[in-house]
């Protein structure tokens, strides 16, 4: 059956060498993903639920413009800072604490926005450490984090470490021969960056920038809290408003479609990533000896970058230390929240990783057959999932499930699905290069050996791709750990996650205990990431 479907798919897109399973499974996964998203939007549109379009659509033009402005600026600044930092990490492949530092870089994305905002405020706020420093120096200057600057700082704090990690992941796929050649051809730092790293950056940056841009358009709490007032209103605020007092899901859907169209335009403008099929072995070994100048510069960049990322985390940790830990741990909700959060995170990360693998395979199949446009479209379609607010997914699915009579009974499944959809683009970005390289290297061999299907996966694909797949899995898990998302809609006393417990505490004057929980979430994410990356740095080839 799958062969027939694959064949007709092959005919539709003029496929020269039909690759049955990859086409079928990939398009199937993609269709499910698209269906899940489209059904939510469609259901809210046709349900007639309060389709009053209250307040009309006035004021949306400035909101749209500001959405674009802040997202574009945030993306540019994140990337501009992330590239040198990634290069610095690459220049210093071995130093004490490198892995721990990179694990901390995975934390920001896993924290609820409000926790990050509070951490940043501890530093940059009116009553923050920087203001204190100036006061001690006798200067009465206070940083003003409220406004575009604050939004940018917060978005860069979220997205710059993400970009660094994604870039380093892409660097891992450079074949070791290239590093040997660089040493043999007497490349200096400039040559290495220009001829080995930059091509990889050029290839992966469009995809990464697209992700960051979408994340920034979807930002909500940060925009409101640090924006300083209604002057900095975005489409996302209008969407949340339509899902709040106005409760007009149809309007929220229309706005989401508008936002998707907008981001679609931006994604379309982003150039296609250069196709760099690389085969062969990779390793963390480097064969050049970075000069003192290079190492000092790298160290300086690294220290600055680490300071920017780690200091708010320390502030968050510090704020959490003073919490009433006995009271937090003593709560039966605490254990429940950890278990629930972990199970949700693991399930959605598993779903996201599997679908990302299948979709990455599809993309490879398309790309290696010269269907670059299709391959690119597949990637961008998956990325677009980030443009749909989780709450809207929740409402849409609810409307659909209302037909089964017990829509809220499926709440856990909905939460997992929504988180998986959100994590999919990241997982895809994490593993694409590795999947491309691996298939490019081993496909022919496997075909020659008649290895296929599940056996091939177990014997060949899994052992080779394990670092990439587990990297993607951890990333997705971290993302879901900190996500409040649809829990807010379905949430009840039955489903308590760490983020929802944090909000419960914040909502009852208990900001200290909320701080403690944020600390635990930080430690949990950091530990998970550290654990998951432990095997990626084996030296032996």
């Amino acid at each position, binding site marked *: 059956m799958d062969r027939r479907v694959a064949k007709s798919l092959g005919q539709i897109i003029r496929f020269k060498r039909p690759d049955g399973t990859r086409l079928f499974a990939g398009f199937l996964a993609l269709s499910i993903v698209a269906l899940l998203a489209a059904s939510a939007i469609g259901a809210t549109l046709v349900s007639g639920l309060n389709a009053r379009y209250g307040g009309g659509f006035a004021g949306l033009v400035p909101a749209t413009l500001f959405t674009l402005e802040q997202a574009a600026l945030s993306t540019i600044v994140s990337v501009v800072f992330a590239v040198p930092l990634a290069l610095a990490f690459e220049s210093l492949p071995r130093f004490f604490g490198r892995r721990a530092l990179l694990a901390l870089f995975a934390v920001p994305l896993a924290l609820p926005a409000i926790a990050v905002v509070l951490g940043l405020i501890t530093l940059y*706020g009116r*009553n923050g450490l920087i203001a204190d420093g100036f006061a001690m120096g006798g200067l009465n200057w206070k940083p003003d984090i409220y406004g575009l600057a604050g939004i940018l700082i917060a978005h860069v704090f979220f997205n710059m470490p993400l970009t660094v990690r994604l870039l380093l992941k892409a660097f891992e796929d450079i074949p070791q021969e290239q590093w040997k050649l660089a040493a043999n051809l007497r490349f200096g730092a400039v040559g290495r960056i220009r001829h080995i790293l930059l091509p990889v950056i050029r290839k992966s940056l469009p995809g990464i920038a697209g992700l960051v841009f979408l994340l920034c358009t979807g930002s909500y709490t940060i925009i409101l809290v640090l924006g300083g007032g*209604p002057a900095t209103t975005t489409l996302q605020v209008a969407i949340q408003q339509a899902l709040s007092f106005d409760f007009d899901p149809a309007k929220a859907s229309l706005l989401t479609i508008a936002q998707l169209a907008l981001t679609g335009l931006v994604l379309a403008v982003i150039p296609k990533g250069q196709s760099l099929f690389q085969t062969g072995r990779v390793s963390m070994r480097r064969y050049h000896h970075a000069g003192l100048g290079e190492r000092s510069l790298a160290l300086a960049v690294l220290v600055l970058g680490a300071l920017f990322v780690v200091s708010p985390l320390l502030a968050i940790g510090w704020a959490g230390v003073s919490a009433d830990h006995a009271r937090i741990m003593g709560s039966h909700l605490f254990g429940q929240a950890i278990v629930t959060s972990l199970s949700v995170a693991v399930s959605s990360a598993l779903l996201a990783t599997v679908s990302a693998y299948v979709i990455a395979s599809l993309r490879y199949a398309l790309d290696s057959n010269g269907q670059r446009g299709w391959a690119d479209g597949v990637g961008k379609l998956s990325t677009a999932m980030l443009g749909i607010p989780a709450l809207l997914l929740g409402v849409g699915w609810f409307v659909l499930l209302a037909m089964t009579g017990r829509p809220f009974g499926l709440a856990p499944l909905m939460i997992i699905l929504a988180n998986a959809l959100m994590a999919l683009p990241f997982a895809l970005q994490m593993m694409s290069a590795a999947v491309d390289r691996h298939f490019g290297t081993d496909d022919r061999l496997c075909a020659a050996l008649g290895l296929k299907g599940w056996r091939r996966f177990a014997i060949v694909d899994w052992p080779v791709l394990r670092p990439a797949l587990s990297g993607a899995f951890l990333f997705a898990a971290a993302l879901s750990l900190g996500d409040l998302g649809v829990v807010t809609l379905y949430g009840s006393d039955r489903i308590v996650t760490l983020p929802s417990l944090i909000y419960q505490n914040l909502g*009852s004057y208990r900001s200290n205990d909320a701080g403690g929980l944020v600390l635990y979430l930080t430690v949990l994410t950091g530990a998970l990431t550290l654990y998951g990356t432990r095997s990626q740095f084996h030296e032996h080839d």
Partner: protein
Amino acid sequence: MRSILLRSRLLLSTLAALAGFLSIAQAETLTVYTYESFTAEWGPGPKVKAAFEKDCACTLDFVAVTDGVALLNRLKLEQADTKADIVLGLDTNLTEDAKATGLFVPHGMDVSGLSVPGGFTDDIFIPYDFAHFAVVYDSEKVKTPPKSMAELIAAGADQKIVIEDPRTSTPGLGLVLWMKSIYGDKAADAWAKLAPKILTVTPGWSEAYSLFTKGEAEMVLSYTTSPAYHMIAENTGRYQAAAFEEGHYLQIEVAAKTVKGKANPLSDKFLAFMVSPAFQDIIPENNWMFPAGKTTAPLNPVFDKMVKPSKTFLYSATEVSANRKAWIDEWQKALGK
């Protein structure tokens, strides 16, 4: 294809059955929809459940969503399929919209024992607690707190206030209504004058209050009862509410019986319990609001120290419903410059 369809239908029905099994209702169950901070471990929920179940030989089942607004939205989603017998935690600004859903029925109870400022009564919604909105300040930084809204507006911009967004939060809407009550047509001017003192506008109360206790702003829009929490639970008088001469806007939290709950004899029992001292005793020091009904013993003396507004503002639910959008637009225009 056929087999796949069959299989997925099977899967769906299995999931549905599983879900049904998980949330299976026991014979004598009362389902109450409410908001999260009510059911939090430290909130009134667990005590209310224990007290009610002690007498009724039944199960009180709470289903909690984020806040009052989400509560109403969930009902709008579920409509007639709702599992709720009782909805507890809407406020008077939402009752008009709630009535429009047609999901609620009159309570038919004698509520003369209840007393809320302004004497709110309704044939569907029963008040269970209340508090006035107030500007809460940090007494270590604010030595001369504003004595009126006029003073707050006229003050210099060096002391900041955090407010909530009326588009997404109840206190945010409360402040808009408060301003409107005081300034009427001149509200836009008042907002424009207040603007330089507003540090930022947060999506909800939690974010605003966190910023405030972190020391980012000297003042925050909260409730007259907020200081009671700090005085009783944290033993500090640092955070105080400012009494405004013009008067304060009132928030009343209400509960009501749904169409579905009409068929459940436990519903009436719960509403009667809710206005009784057994329930009302729990409210002050767990929900940090004033009880609407009589309590067994006088409240903790700390509550006597709370600001007692000279005048209470409260728009009718109809007025709020009719004007909310226009007034929020006015707010947005005044601040959005």
